[in-house]
C-alpha cells in the first residue's frame, strides 16, 4: 500500500525498482519458509531414510565435487560414504557452510541463477536423518544413479553445450611453496568480427584448480608494429570456486574482432596444501570458455563487467593488527542501469560484504545483497534472475560495503599481528566488487519498471 501510494503521487521514475524485485522475492519466499516449517514439524514422527529422502539431495548437491577426481576432500557417492561422514555433513549443512555458496538467505534479493544453496526443507531433512541415526531405509526407494558430468567438463555445458571458443593460457610450473605468482601471457582468440557473448567460464585444468586464486581476462588488439593495446573490454574475472558468467538475454557483452586475451592469473603456491616444499606442479593451464550468440543476434543494450572500488580507492586501505576495517564505495550513473550480478572481492581478512542502493530523492536505502560469511576460497558471481535484477534509476547511488577482520577470530587470518594494506598477494588485501551492469536508457528503464509492477500485482 505504501509503495502504491508513492507511485501514484509521482510516477515510477524515482521509485526503487530494486524494491519491486524484493517484493517478488519476499512473496515467493513465503512459500519456501512454510514448506521448511512443515517438514521440520513432521520430521519427529516420520522416519527419514537415506534411500527415500537423502540420497537425492546428496546426489544433486554434493556428489559433483565429492567423488573420485572431484575437488572435495571426501567422497559422498553412496550410503556408506554418507553414513561415515553423517555428523560432519549435518554440521556443514546446518551451518550453511556446504554447499559453498555464501549469500545471506534472509535479506535482499534471493532469486539467483546457479544458486547452490540448499532449501530449508533439504537442510531439515538431512539434520533429521542424522539425528534419527542415519538409516539406509529400503533400497528400493533409492533414486537412479546421478548422471554427473566429468570433473573436467565445462560446468555450463548442460545449459549451453560445448563452448564456441576455448582460449588457453600458456602452461606454467607452480612450486608448492614461495611467493605468489602472477602469470600474464597473451593468447589469440581467432574471431574476425565483433560478436556478442552469451556466457563465459574460466576453468583451471587439472592441478591448477588448487593454486589459481584468480584469473582476469582482458581483450587486447595487436597493432601494426606488433605491440598490443587494450580494447577497453574485459572478458571476465575468475576467482577460486567461481562458476562463470551468464549474460542476460537481450543484452550484449562484446567480444571485439581480432581480439587477443591478456591473462592475469594469480597463482597461490600455498594452495597446494601438504605437498613437500620442493615439489612442483608442472604445466598448469587456465582455459577461458566463451559461448557466443549468433552473428545476427538482436540486442537492445550493452553490458560490461567492471571492478568498482571503495571510496578512497583500495590503495588507501589499512588494517591495524588485531583490528577491523570497513570500506565503503559509492557509485552512481548518469543513465539508468540494471545490475545483473554482484561479486565481492577480497583476500584472507575479508569477512562480509553488502550491496545497497540509496535513492537521493527519497532518502531510502535498500539492501540488495548481503554476504555475512564471505570466504576467500569460494568466490561466486551472484547472478540475479532476470525479473529481479536491480533496476537503478539515474542518480541513485550504489553503496558497496566490505568488512575486514584482522583478529585471531578470523580462521583464515595468517597472522593477526601484521599491519595489512592493499597488495596483490593473498596475504595482502583488496576491496572491490565485480559487477556486470547493463546500461539502459530512460525508455527501457521505465518499460522494465512497468513490467515488474504488473508482475508484482499478479503475485500479490
Amino acid at each position, binding site marked *: 500500500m505504501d509503495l502504491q501510494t508513492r507511485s501514484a503521487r509521482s510516477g515510477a521514475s524515482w521509485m526503487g525498482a530494486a524494491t519491486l524485485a524484493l517484493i517478488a522475492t519476499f512473496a515467493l519466499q513465503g512459500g519456501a519458509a512454510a514448506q521448511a516449517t512443515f517438514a521440520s514439524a513432521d520430521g519427529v514422527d516420520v522416519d527419514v531414510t537415506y534411500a527415500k529422502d537423502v540420497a537425492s539431495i546428496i546426489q544433486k548437491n554434493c556428489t559433483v565435487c565429492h567423488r573420485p577426481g572431484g575437488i572435495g576432500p571426501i567422497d559422498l557417492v553412496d550410503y556408506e560414504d554418507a553414513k561415515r561422514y553423517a555428523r560432519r555433513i549435518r554440521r556443514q549443512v546446518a551451518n550453511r557452510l556446504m554447499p559453498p555458496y555464501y549469500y545471506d538467505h534472509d535479506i535482499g534479493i534471493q532469486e539467483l541463477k546457479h544458486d547452490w544453496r540448499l532449501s530449508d526443507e533439504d537442510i531439515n531433512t538431512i539434520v533429521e536423518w542424522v539425528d534419527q541415526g542415519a538409516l539406509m531405509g529400503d533400497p528400493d526407494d533409492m533414486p537412479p544413479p546421478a548422471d554427473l558430468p566429468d570433473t573436467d567438463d565445462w560446468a555450463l555445458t548442460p545449459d549451453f553445450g560445448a563452448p564456441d571458443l576455448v582460449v588457453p593460457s600458456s602452461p606454467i610450473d607452480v612450486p608448492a611453496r614461495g611467493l605468489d605468482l602472477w602469470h600474464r601471457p597473451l593468447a589469440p582468440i581467432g574471431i574476425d568480427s565483433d560478436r556478442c557473448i552469451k556466457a563465459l567460464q574460466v576453468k583451471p585444468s587439472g592441478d591448477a584448480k588448487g593454486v589459481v586464486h584468480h584469473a582476469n581476462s582482458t581483450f587486447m588488439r595487436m597493432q601494426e608494429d606488433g605491440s598490443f593495446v587494450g580494447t577497453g573490454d574485459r572478458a571476465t574475472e575468475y576467482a577460486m570456486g567461481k562458476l562463470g558468467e551468464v549474460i542476460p538475454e537481450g543484452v550484449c557483452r562484446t567480444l571485439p574482432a581480432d581480439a587477443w586475451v591478456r591473462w592475469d592469473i594469480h597463482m597461490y603456491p600455498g594452495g597446494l596444501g601438504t605437498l613437500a616444499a620442493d615439489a612442483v606442479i608442472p604445466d598448469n593451464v587456465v582455459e577461458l570458455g566463451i559461448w557466443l550468440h549468433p552473428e545476427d543476434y538482436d540486442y537492445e543494450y550493452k553490458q560490461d563487467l567492471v571492478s568498482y572500488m571503495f571510496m578512497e580507492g583500495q590503495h588507501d586501505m589499512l588494517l591495524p593488527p588485531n583490528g577491523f576495517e570497513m570500506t565503503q564505495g559509492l557509485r552512481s550513473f548518469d543513465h539508468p542501469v540494471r545490475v545483473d550480478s554482484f561479486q565481492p572481492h577480497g583476500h584472507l581478512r575479508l569477512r562480509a560484504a553488502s550491496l545497497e542502493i540509496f535513492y537521493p530523492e527519497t532518502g531510502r536505502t*535498500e539492501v540488495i545483497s548481503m554476504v555475512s560469511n564471505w570466504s576467500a576460497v569460494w568466490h561466486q558471481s551472484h547472478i540475479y534472475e532476470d525479473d529481479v535484477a536491480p533496476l537503478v534509476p539515474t542518480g541513485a547511488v550504489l553503496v558497496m560495503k566490505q568488512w575486514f577482520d584482522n583478529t585471531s577470530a578470523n580462521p583464515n587470518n595468517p597472522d593477526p599481528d601484521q599491519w595489512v594494506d592493499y597488495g596483490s598477494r593473498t596475504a595482502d588485501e583488496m576491496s572491490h566488487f565485480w559487477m556486470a551492469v547493463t546500461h539502459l536508457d530512460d525508455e527501457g528503464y521505465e518499460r522494465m519498471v512497468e513490467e515488474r509492477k504488473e508482475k508484482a500485482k499478479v503475485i500479490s
Partner: protein
Amino acid sequence: MVGRASLALLLCVVVAGPAALRAQAAADGRLPLQPPPPSGGQQNVIPFMEGWYANEDGTYTVAFGYLNLNRDVTVMIPVGDDNRLDVAEFDGMQPTTFLPGRQRGVFSVTLPADRVDEDVWWSLRNHQADGEVMRVPGRTNAIAYELDWKLRPQGSLHPLVWFESSSRQGRGPRGIVAETTPTTTVGSPVVLSINTRDPSERDPDDYRFVNAIPLRVVWSRYQSPGDVEFTRHESNPLPEPEVVVDSASAAGRRAIARNNNSPGPQSILLVEGHGEASVIVTFSEPGEYIMRAQVDNFRAVDSASNDQCCWTNGYVRVRVTR
C-alpha cells in the same frame, strides 16, 4: 507483508550502518568516511613486515617496509627509543628518514637457522602525531608471507647490484652495503654510483621482450641528520620531450603525462637493462648518512612493488663534516 519487508530492510540499514562505522575507526583514529586532516607531518608512520625468505644457507631473511601516512611530508625518526628493533644486534640499520607513502622492502634482517622461531619487532613513534607506538613483528611462521628468489612467470628476477669498490653483489631487499665510506663536507657535492645488471630470463619470442626491459634506479636518503639535495649527473640527462602526434589519443595523453612528469635527478633509467647509475648529492648538515639506491625492473609485466618482486637495495654510508 510487503510493507513489513521494506521496513525491515530500512531498519537494518539504519541500525547497522552507524554502529558499524563507529566500530571501525582507522589506524590513525579517523572514522572510515572521515576525510584525512591536512598533512603537516602529524600522521603516523606504520611499520610493515613484507615477508620472509628461506635462504639457501639455512638462514632466514625478513623484509620490512613502511607506510608514512603523511601524503607529502618526509618524517624523521632517529634510531633510539622511537625507532628500534628489539633484537639489539639487528638495531641500527633501519631507516630514519621516512618518505611519504608506502615504501616496500626498504631493509631486512637475517636470522640464523637456529633462531628461525624468533620474532623481531620493529617499533616506531612519530612525536608529531599522537605519540602512539606503531609496531610489527618480523617472523617466519606464516606460509602466506613467504617470499622467494625464484624466476617469476615471465622471467623476472631481482636485479644484481654492486659497487665499484667491491666484488660482492647484492640481490633483493637484503641488498648490499658499500664497503667504502665517501667523505665530504657540508655543501660540497659528491657523486654516488651503483652498478647493476638484470639477470631476468625472458622469452625472446614474446613481443614485450624484444627490447631490453629498462632498469630504474632511485636514490633516496635513508638515514640522514640533515637535508639532502640531488643534482642531475651528466650520465643522466633530462629526457627529450616526446613528440605528441595526437593529443586526444590515449598514447598522446600518456606522452603528455610523461613530458609533464620528468623524473628527478635521483631517478635514473638504464634502458639497456644494465649499467652504472650516478647522482650528485649535497648535504646540509654534518653527520653520518646512509643513502639508499632502489634498483627495480618494474617495467616488466611480472614485476611490481605490490607483487613484492623485483627490486634490490644498495646502501652507501657517507660521512659529512663541516
